[in-house]
């Protein structure tokens, strides 16, 4: 039953073409086409899940391309990681698309939106299914394209257009790293198939470099430390898009890639160490910025960067199951938070949390689900966030690197802090906004409730009560896993401490004067640095090259033609028209010939 897996991405792909070609005629129906397609994919994913449980496996379809002797075949990989991702993507995707029907209600390009969403779904599902790095790269770029198109969906706004391009270019910088990694692997003769990632048949430093290059791709896509600048700006897009792409699925692709190539990384401790370090840096940095952000979506965006950092840290510290488990749980509650934020914005038409407040009693369902999501994110005990974050903390602890553990702890603390700050500012106190807030329609709140259900109970499948079903499912080879009670208690304490400090400081949040701590507030000046380092020099160099081309190279060409014309002009004046000049020239020519020939004759002593 497993080999129907390759149909999963085809349905959204068909939906994309349907919506593109008949978009205008379909009108609202285009949403149902999209949602239907992703629903079918969800069902198929579930069937594949059952098929996997009953012993299915990867299979290959057709040979696709031969490069340098390597046959690259169109293969489908079906294992626990893929199925987990399939389920996450399809379930979250469907829910978000249902939500979008409400959210994107009056938009003139309604069908175009759902077309892009379907295209995104198909490429994301494709990304998760293909069995080799090359095809993954293709879907990888497809996903990047859709994120760019969707971020810049309202392209009338120049900010949205710029954000879309920024997103695509920054991820493209990372993708180029992945591209070079693929090339390196191929040049070394290493197969690109994930199944034989562990096989080492090349010199140590090259493989480590390949691993790092691949990680560079993951950094770009998952907005990790150096290449994270595009995610906060990507919030220009519709919130449903942010929920689907910039919280649940696309950004997780980076983590999925690292998980997928895990044997390659474990074979080279240096590569693994960099993953962990980069994860830790981005986690702490993003968390600190989130504490000062005032735009609700920006806060969630930085929290996503921070949580992904955490996952990378988990993976880097050897906690394969921890990282993947947090990936799954985070997808659900972060989607919930974004959708909640979406319905709040939909209601109060502003994103600035300082202009909100007291929404708890006006938007009951949204607030409740939002709080559940926040608690899950903060890692409060029974919710899903707690279990997965705990896994990571234990893994980091066992890994032994004390600095990383401190980073993990501070991230959890800060996460709890800024989420509580957000809730206090947004939902409690008196309403500071101008608009009359009202609860969002059912089509938007229903997905919130479902996601809240997942946020509450999804963690349990990894808990000891379900005797770590998820861990055994995701990494059967890793053997028995025991819950470390001490670490569980410690992480709960950290979470509660974060909430408490935010609760204590709630008074100061409002009168906090911006500028008190410029470094963090201006997001460590990354944007300005990149602008100065890359963007402005790029423009300057382009202008310099164009001027050089116009003046120098063209100059040479025009120069040659001008000097030929001048020679011609000079030679033309030889024809003075006076017979006497001609006669002297002729006689002179005869004389010169005689002299030259006699000299030549003498020299060649012909006579």
């Amino acid at each position, binding site marked *: 039953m497993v080999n129907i897996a390759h149909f999963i991405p085809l349905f959204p792909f068909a939906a994309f073409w349907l919506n*593109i070609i008949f978009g205008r005629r379909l009108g609202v129906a285009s949403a149902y086409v999209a949602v239907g397609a992703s629903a079918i994919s969800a069902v198929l994913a579930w069937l594949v899940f059952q098929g996997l449980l009953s012993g299915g496996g990867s299979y290959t379809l057709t040979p*696709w*391309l031969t*490069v*340098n002797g390597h046959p690259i075949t169109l293969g489908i990989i079906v294992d626990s990681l893929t199925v987990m991702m399939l389920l996450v993507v399809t379930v979250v995707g469907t829910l978000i698309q249902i939500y979008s029907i409400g959210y994107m209600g009056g938009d*003139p390009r309604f069908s175009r939106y759902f077309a892009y969403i379907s295209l995104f779904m198909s*490429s994301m599902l494709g990304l998760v299914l293909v069995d080799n790095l090359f095809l993954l*790269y*293709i*879907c*990888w*770029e*497809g996903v990047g*394209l859709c994120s*760019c198109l969707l971020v*810049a969906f309202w*392209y*009338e706004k*120049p900010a949205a*257009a*710029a954000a879309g*391009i920024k997103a*695509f*270019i920054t991820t*493209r*910088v990372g993708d*180029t790293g992945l*591209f*070079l990694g693929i*090339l*390196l692997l*191929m*040049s070394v003769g290493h197969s690109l198939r994930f199944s034989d990632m562990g096989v080492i048949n090349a010199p140590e430093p090259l493989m480590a470099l390949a691993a790092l290059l691949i990680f560079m791709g993951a950094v770009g896509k998952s907005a990790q430390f150096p290449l994270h600048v595009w995610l906060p700006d990507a919030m220009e897009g519709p919130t449903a898009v942010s929920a689907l792409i910039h919280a649940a699925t696309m950004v997780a692709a980076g983590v999925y890639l690292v998980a997928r190539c895990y044997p390659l990384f474990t074979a080279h401790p240096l590569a693994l160490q960099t993953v962990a370090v980069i994860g830790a840096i981005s986690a702490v940095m993003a968390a600190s910025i989130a504490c000062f952000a005032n735009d609700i979506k920006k806060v969630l965006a930085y929290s996503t960067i921070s949580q992904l950092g955490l996952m990378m840290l988990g993976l880097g510290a050897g906690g394969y199951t921890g990282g993947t488990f947090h990936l799954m749980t985070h997808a659900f509650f972060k989607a919930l938070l974004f959708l909640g934020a979406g319905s709040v914005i939909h209601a109060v038409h502003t994103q600035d949390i300082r202009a909100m407040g007291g929404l708890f009693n006006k938007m009951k369902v949204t607030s409740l689900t939002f709080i559940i999501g926040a608690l899950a994110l903060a890692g409060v005990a029974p919710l899903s966030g707690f279990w997965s974050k705990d896994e990571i903390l234990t893994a980091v602890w066992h890994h032994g690197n004390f600095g990383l553990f401190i980073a993990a702890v501070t991230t959890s603390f800060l996460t709890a802090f800024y989420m509580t700050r957000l809730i206090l500012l947004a939902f409690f106190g008196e309403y500071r906004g101008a608009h009359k807030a009202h609860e969002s329609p059912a089509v938007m709140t229903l997905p919130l409730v479902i996601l809240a259900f997942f946020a509450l109970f999804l963690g349990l499948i990894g808990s000891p009560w379900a005797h770590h079903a998820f861990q055994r499912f995701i990494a059967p080879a890793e053997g028995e896993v025991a819950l470390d009670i001490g670490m569980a208690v410690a992480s709960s304490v950290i979470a509660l401490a974060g909430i408490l400090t935010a609760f204590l400081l709630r008074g100061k949040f409002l009168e906090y004067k911006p500028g008190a701590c410029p470094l963090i507030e201006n997001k460590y000046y990354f944007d300005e640095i990149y602008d100065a380092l890359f963007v402005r020099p*790029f*423009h300057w*160099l*382009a*202008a310099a*090259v*164009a*001027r050089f*081309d116009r003046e120098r*190279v*063209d100059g040479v*060409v025009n120069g040659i*033609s001008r000097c030929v014309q001048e020679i011609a002009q000079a030679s033309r004046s030889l024809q003075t028209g006076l017979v006497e000049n001609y006669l002297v020239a002729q006689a002179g020519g005869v004389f010169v010939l005689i002299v030259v020939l006699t000299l030549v004759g003498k020299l060649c002593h012909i006579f």
Partner: protein
Amino acid sequence: MSYFLTAIIFLPLAGAAFIALIPAAQVRSIRLAAVAFNTAVLAAAAVVALHFNVSAGLQFLEDRVWIPQANIHYTLGVDGISLALVVLTALMGLLAALASGCITKRVKEYFIVYQVLMTGLLGTFLALDLVLFYIFWEAVLIPMFFLIGIWGGPRREYAAWKFFFYTLAGSVAMLLGILAVYFSVVPHTFNMIEIARSSSMMPIAAQMVFFLMFFIAFAIKVPVFPFHTWLPDAHVEAPTPVSVILAGVLLKMGTYGLMRICIPFFPAAAVLFAFPLAILGAVNLIYGAFAAFAQTDFKKMIAYSSVSHMGFVLLGVAALNATGFNGALLEMFNHGVITGAMFLLVGVIYDRAHTREISAFGGLASVMPRYAFFLTFMSLASLGLPGLSGFIGEFLAMAGAFFRFPSIAVISAIGLIALVALFLVIIRKVLWGKPAAHAGYPDMNAVEIAVMLPLAALTLAIGFYPQMILQFQTYAVNALVGLL
């Protein structure tokens, strides 16, 4: 001894003669005749492609003695290298003829000269005798000179002159090269296949000199960095269908020459010159992208971008391995299709806005949705989005270059990113943002869409199933690599 290839070459010429008979007033019948003849050529090319035996070398051979005294033969043949280009020429020829609706002045002369141009192009790709190749190579010059010179934009004469003398200077160096090769190969022959077979005998010094002689002519046509300044002027001033042909096919003559003559004739020299060629490729790639970025004229941007795309082809050729050659050939085909489509799109907007200043457009996506779809689609194909044909060609070329010169491949990755930035900026400046007040342009009409659809379909098809084109090339590429 089939006469099929001769038919393909001289069918457009017959078309020119036929159009000459039609009185100039009946513009419609002239256009119809032109389209009919070009369709016939495309059909013939398709038949050749269908009957092409994938696992054999040269096919459809025709070899007749032309001038015994000078040992010149009328030899035609098609193999993996030239097949894709012939089909491309036929296709772009038809689509450009269809898109020639915007030509209203002296239509009859336009189509006569246009058909002569097609004959020259097809001949260049099919000729296997060096002199015949040179004759068709030069026969392309005059029609282009007329097409740019009479129907071009404001600075057309300067552009036409520049194009003509730039290419002429190069091809004249090639003529000396041809003769030098003729006299240094024992037994004296112009036949490319025999020369390739006996190329290893030539001393290395001679090989290098001859390689350079040929390389100058092809470098100007490709165009390679220092010799590229004719391209932007020629493109900007040429009318849309002519610049489609110019970008779609003429640039390929240079690279085709590299792969058909420079590499097989002088393998030892090729190995020595591989590194400089790769550097030139990388320079082309980065220089083209940066120069394009700073342009204000939409068409000039596309022109410079095709300079940078040809950088990929150069990288592929410089790699001197099967992947590189495959990549180069595929990139040639894809570039022809994609940049041809881009120029058509520029033409569409030019017919409406009568200006090419990119600052004059903006927010066209809401005004012209179909145009927006096609422009986005083609821009993404140009920037090498995987899943579309542009990526496959670039990937193979870069892979080939990486295997041989990893450092250069890494440097040219900058070019990749620059290209992405370029085309995204194009999409933003033309399509996104608020539509300008006067931008009430009508969307693409049926003919324009009919011209764009096959190109878009082709890009998508090759992107998803590259084997469609690669299968034709593998035999020829392996033979080429075997010579090195």
